[in-house]
C-alpha cells in the first residue's frame, strides 16, 4: 500500500470506520427505495457474523492459531443468553445483564479448552477445536433437561434499552443496536491490536520461537487471545439468540458455521479489522442476499424446473460457493482488504521459498 501516495493510506487505515459509517447510512438510503430494494433488514445477520469474525480474527488473524471451533463458542453464547433470559428458566435476566454474562461464560469456555491444548502445534490445535465444536453440539443435544435438547429455547424476550423495547417487527432499532455493539467490538479490537498485547500476538504469529526467546510467555498470550476470541464469538451467539428470539437448535451451530467464520476472516483479509467487516458482508450477503434474489429471479422467469435436480439453482449453491472460495484463494489469497503486515508476510513468501518446518505462521 505504501506505494500509493496521497490520501489513500490514511483512508485505508480508517477503512473500518468508513465501512461502519456506510452501514449506518444504509437505512437512510433504503428509505429512498421501494420495499423490494431495501437491504437493511437483511444486513442484521451480517453484523452478528462480523462480531463472530472479529472473535476468530483475534485468534487466527492476529495470533496465527487456527481455530475451527468458533461455532461451539457461538452455541455456548446463544444457549447462555437463552437460559439467562427465557422465562421457562428462573433466571430471567435482561439483555444488558445477560450479554456480559454471555461474554464471561464464553471467555471461561475458551480458557477451559485452551488451558490443556493451547501449547499444541498449529494443526493439532485445529483438530482439537474442531472436535470441541462437535462435543459442544452433541452435549447441548444430549443434556436436554437443561438445554431442551433439539427443541431449542424460545422465544426469548425482546431486549430493552432505557425503557424502550426492541420489538421484532421494527427492524430499524435492532439494526442500530447491533451496529453499535459491533462498533464497540471493533473499537476494542483496534485498541488491542495497536497495544502491547496486539504486538505480542503479532510477534507470536510471525515467529513464535523468537518471541519466546524475548521472554514472551506465549502460552499466556495465546490463552488471552483464545479467551478474547471466544468471548467475542460467544457474544455473537448471544446477539444471534436475541435476533432470532430463540437459541436455535444445537444442530444449527455445526461445523459449517465455523467454516463460514473462517471464510469471513480469510476472504476479508487475515488480521485486518476492516477486512472482517467486508468479509462478513460478502460471505453472508452472497448467500442471504444475492443467491436468494437470483433464485427468485430465475424462478420468476420460469427458468427452473422443480422436477430436475440440474435446473434447480438451489442444487448449485454449494458449487458456486466452493468455486468462489477457490478462485478467491487463487487470485487474491491475502483477502479483499488485507492488513499491511499479513500482506507483507505474503510477499516475503514470494521472494524466498524456504518453508519453516514448524510453521510459525500457521
Amino acid at each position, binding site marked *: 500500500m505504501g506505494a500509493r501516495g496521497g490520501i489513500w493510506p490514511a483512508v485505508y487505515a480508517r477503512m473500518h470506520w468508513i465501512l461502519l459509517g456506510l452501514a449506518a447510512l444504509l437505512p437512510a438510503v433504503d428509505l429512498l427505495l421501494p420495499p423490494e430494494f431495501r437491504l437493511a433488514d437483511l444486513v442484521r445477520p451480517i453484523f452478528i457474523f462480523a462480531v463472530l469474525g472479529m472473535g476468530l480474527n483475534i485468534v487466527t488473524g492476529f495470533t496465527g492459531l487456527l481455530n475451527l471451533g468458533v461455532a461451539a463458542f457461538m452455541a455456548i453464547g446463544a444457549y447462555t443468553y437463552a437460559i439467562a433470559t427465557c*422465562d421457562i428458566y428462573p433466571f430471567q435476566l435482561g439483555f444488558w445483564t445477560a450479554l456480559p454474562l454471555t461474554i464471561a461464560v464464553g471467555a471461561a469456555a475458551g480458557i477451559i479448552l485452551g488451558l490443556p491444548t493451547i*501449547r499444541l502445534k498449529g494443526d493439532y490445535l485445529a483438530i482439537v477445536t474442531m472436535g470441541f465444536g462437535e462435543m459442544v453440539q452433541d452435549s447441548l443435544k444430549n443434556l436436554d433437561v437443561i438445554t431442551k435438547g433439539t427443541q431449542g429455547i424460545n422465544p426469548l424476550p425482546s431486549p430493552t434499552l432505557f425503557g424502550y423495547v426492541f420489538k421484532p417487527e421494527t427492524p430499524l432499532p435492532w439494526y442500530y443496536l447491533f451496529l453499535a455493539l459491533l462498533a464497540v467490538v471493533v473499537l476494542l479490537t483496534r485498541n488491542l491490536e495497536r497495544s502491547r498485547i496486539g504486538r505480542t500476538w503479532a510477534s507470536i504469529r510471525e515467529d513464535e520461537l523468537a518471541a519466546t526467546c524475548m521472554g514472551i510467555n506465549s502460552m499466556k498470550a495465546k490463552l488471552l487471545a483464545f479467551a478474547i476470541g471466544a468471548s467475542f464469538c460467544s457474544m455473537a451467539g448471544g446477539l444471534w439468540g436475541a435476533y432470532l428470539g430463540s437459541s436455535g437448535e444445537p444442530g444449527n451451530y455445526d461445523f459449517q458455521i465455523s467454516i463460514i467464520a473462517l471464510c469471513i476472516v480469510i476472504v476479508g483479509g487475515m488480521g485486518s479489522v476492516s477486512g472482517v467487516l467486508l468479509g462478513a458482508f460478502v460471505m453472508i450477503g452472497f448467500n442471504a442476499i444475492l443467491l436468494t434474489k437470483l433464485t427468485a429471479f430465475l424462478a420468476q422467469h420460469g427458468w427452473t424446473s422443480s422436477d430436475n435436480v440440474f435446473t434447480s439453482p438451489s442444487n448449485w449453491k454449494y458449487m458456486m460457493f466452493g468455486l468462489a472460495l477457490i478462485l478467491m484463494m487463487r487470485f487474491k489469497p491475502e483477502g479483499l482488504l488485507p492488513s499491511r503486515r499479513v500482506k507483507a508476510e505474503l510477499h516475503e513468501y514470494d521472494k524466498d521459498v524456504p518453508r519453516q518446518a514448524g510453521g510459525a505462521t500457521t
Partner: protein
Amino acid sequence: MSLLRVDDLTLRFGGLTAVNKLSFEVTPGQIYAIIGPNGAGKTSAFNAITGVYVPACGCVRIRGREAKRPFTRRTLWGFLLVAALTAAGLVLAVNAEPLWEAAITMNYLYQQPFPWAKALQDGLTYLRDVEWKYSAGAAGFGALVGLAGAWSVWRRARCAPDVLAGAGVARTFQNSRLFHQMTVLDNVLVGMDTKLRTRFWHAAFRLPRHRRELRESSRKALEILRFAGLEKEATAVASSLSYGHQRRLEIARALAVEPVILLLDEPAAGMNPTEAAGLMELIRRIRGRGIAVLLIEHHMKVVMGVSDEIAVLEYGNKIAEGKPEAIKIDPKVRAAYLGTAEV
C-alpha cells in the same frame, strides 16, 4: 562467582550426540567465545542453553541458580486447584442433568417467583444423596487427570526459552529471526515486553496509564536503538533494512530484554570488514554496560579481537579452552580446523 555456569550439558538428536558433556563458565563482564568447525555443535549448545531444545542432561545456572521455572508453593497450589476444579467439573458434568432437575426444574413453576435458597438446598441435598460410588469415581478420575495433566503441561514448559529470558539470558539467531513485518521500533518493543505493565483492561480501553507507558517505552526503545546505531531506521519495516542493520537490530532487540548475559550466534556472518569492525565496537560497548557476552563466531578477527576467553568445540566435545593467545597456538585446535582456522 560465575554469571553463567553450564555443567555437563548433553544434547542428542536420535543417535547423534550434538553436544557432549559441555561445561564452562562465564564471569560477569566477560566476553566468552565458542568456536569450532561447522557442525561442531556450537549452535546446538546455544539452543540447549536457551531452552529451545531440551537437553538430555546437564544444567544451566545463572548466578548460581538453576535456570528452570521453580517449583514453588504457588505452583503446587496451582496443580491442586486444577485437580480440584477438574474433579468438581467432572462430578458436576456427570450429574448435570439430575442436579439441574432437582435444583431448578423441580423448584420453578412457570412465571412464579423462584425460591433461590430452597433450590440451593435441594441441589446440595441431591449431591449429598447421590450414589457415592459414581461421584467418587468421577472425582478421583478428574483429580488424577487434572493433576497429571497440569504436571505434564507445566513440566514441558519448565525450561522454555521465556524462562531463560526471564532469568536474564537474551540471544540472537544464526539466521536472522526478526519480526520482519514489524517496524524496527516494534521489534525492540517486543523485546521489552516483559518489562511492560500494561494489562488487558488498560489496553482495551486505552486508559491513560497505557498511553503513558506507550510513550515511555517508545522513548526507552529509541534509546536502545540509538545505542545500536539504528535510531534513523526506527520507523522502517525490519525486512527493508540492510543485512548489517538487521543483525544490529537483532542485538538491539535482545538488549531490550535487559539481559545479564547476551548470546550472539554468529553476529558477524556475512559482514564486510567495516561492518565487522563496527560490530566489535558494539560488542565492547555492550560489555561496557555490564552485560556479559557469549559469542559464537567464525570470523576469527572478531573472535580474537574481542574475546576474553575462548572455548573450542569439535563433534560436540570441548577440546580446548583458554585466552585467545593460547588458543591460537593450540595444536589440537589447529588440527580440528585442518589449517582453515586463519580466516
